[in-house]
């Protein structure tokens, strides 16, 4: 583990996974993941369907309970504490939520609340979690909607928007939590091709502002361009990781090579 010194400009570790293991009944989905994610960096996770990408992401914000190893967010182990005998015990959900106050997730299916207007969706975390007064919450929500280019639809309801618009609203809603770390689980996979760009643009801006991002994606162009680190997951293990130039131009693992070949032949041009 890297020592978290604040003296020099070395970024501190935002998320650290240590020998992370996750099972669904007998099916082991994550088979010992070690990963370091530095503050302010963009990490893209790629890999075939069923390789455990979503599960990995969902273990970080504890939407899934992992069984072994550790998920540490800014040095604090998520989900587990110690009882008096020093044994590991699961913490209550509300406490885990508090510890995850700086982490939020953007979902493939947006998961907006359809009975609330766009503005109300973004105001929800402000009003109902942080207890921000109405006028202030509204102002902040409008700022965030402006940031993602959706202020003109503030009064609309989610179901009347395109997928790309919904996802941008979902990003604004996540930002209302004021996170330091954002997790994206295939944020553009449910979108029509012509709508992918508008969402990626918002994400790119977030990256430029220094947001710590972990992005599961099939958009190799985005991964190559924006990420500091790419992680290739295969069958629940990290098969290869490194800077995008290395992974995309000179992959050493045969599995990654064949994964990239399949991807290029499907998408016409290489990333």
């Amino acid at each position, binding site marked *: 583990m890297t020592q978290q010194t604040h003296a020099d400009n070395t970024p501190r570790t935002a998320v650290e996974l240590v020998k992370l293991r996750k099972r669904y009944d007998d099916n082991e989905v994550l088979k010992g993941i070690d990963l370091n994610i530095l503050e302010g960096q963009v990490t893209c996770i790629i890999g075939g369907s069923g390789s455990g990408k979503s599960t990995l992401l969902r273990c970080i*914000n504890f*939407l899934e309970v992992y069984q072994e190893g550790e998920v540490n967010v800014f040095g604090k182990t998520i989900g587990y504490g110690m009882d008096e005998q020093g044994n590991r015990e699961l913490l209550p*959900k*509300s406490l885990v*939520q*508090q510890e*995850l*106050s700086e982490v*939020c*997730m953007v*979902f493939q*299916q947006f*998961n*907006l*609340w*359809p*009975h*609330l207007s766009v503005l109300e969706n973004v105001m*929800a*975390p402000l009003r*109902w*979690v942080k207890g921000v007064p109405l006028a202030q919450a509204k102002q902040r929500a409008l700022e965030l909607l402006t940031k993602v280019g959706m202020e003109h639809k503030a009064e*609309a*309801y989610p*179901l*009347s928007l395109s997928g790309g618009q919904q996802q941008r609203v*979902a990003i604004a*809603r*996540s930002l*209302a*939590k004021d996170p330091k770390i954002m997790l994206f689980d295939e944020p553009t996979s449910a979108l029509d091709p012509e709508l992918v760009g508008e969402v990626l643009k918002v994400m790119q801006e977030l990256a430029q502002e220094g947001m710590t991002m972990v992005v599961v994606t099939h958009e190799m162009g985005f991964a190559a361009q924006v990420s500091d680190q790419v992680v290739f997951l295969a069958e629940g293990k990290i098969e290869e990781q490194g800077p995008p130039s290395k992974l995309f131009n000179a992959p050493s693992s045969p599995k990654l090579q064949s994964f990239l070949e399949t991807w290029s032949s499907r998408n016409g041009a290489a990333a």
Partner: protein
Amino acid sequence: MDFSLYLEFGPALLKGFTYTVYVCSLGLLLGLVWGLVLYLISLRPGALWRWFYRGYLATFRGTPLLVQVYLLFYGGPFIGLSLSAEFVGVLCLALYVAAYFAEIYRSGFESLAKGQLEAAQDLGMSRITTLVKIQLPQMLALIIPPCLNQTIIMVKESAILSVITVPEMTTAAVRMATQTFTVVEPYLFLALAYWCLNFAIAKVANYCELRATHYLRS
């Protein structure tokens, strides 16, 4: 048909009508709340809770309301429960209708996309806030029609409370029948009164449903 009878018994029938409205409203209100509690119980892990929930449904949906009312009113004193007819009436309606409401809630909650709840959890919303702000408003739109049906059934079933002399409108009509040796006049009144009541319930529920599903049409 002797319409002049209505002049004499009108006030008594009207009083019975008001009492039916009162008993049914209370029964409905308590039933809605107790049904929600039952639903929450059904979600609890553990065999005891599940056993209780299943037993409750089997008891209150598997036996006639008439039998439940008799047993509680006449059987209650044997276990130290001497309750007034009015109290037993409201209680029985609530216990009975709650069994149906619980199952309606269940189907309503289950049809809500799981992702919406994950988003709420991820954003730090507490369970109770999620319930009140996310689940209930959407569920409302789904459950109003089946709840309406159940309420109409309950209102009709409330006539059974006359067997333990709850002073509701069937009791009033039966008294009129026995005192005047008529059948058509009192029961015609009952038919009209129950129909009006259920018509009004349907109107209110339709309005609520329109309001609750507003977001689906905009």
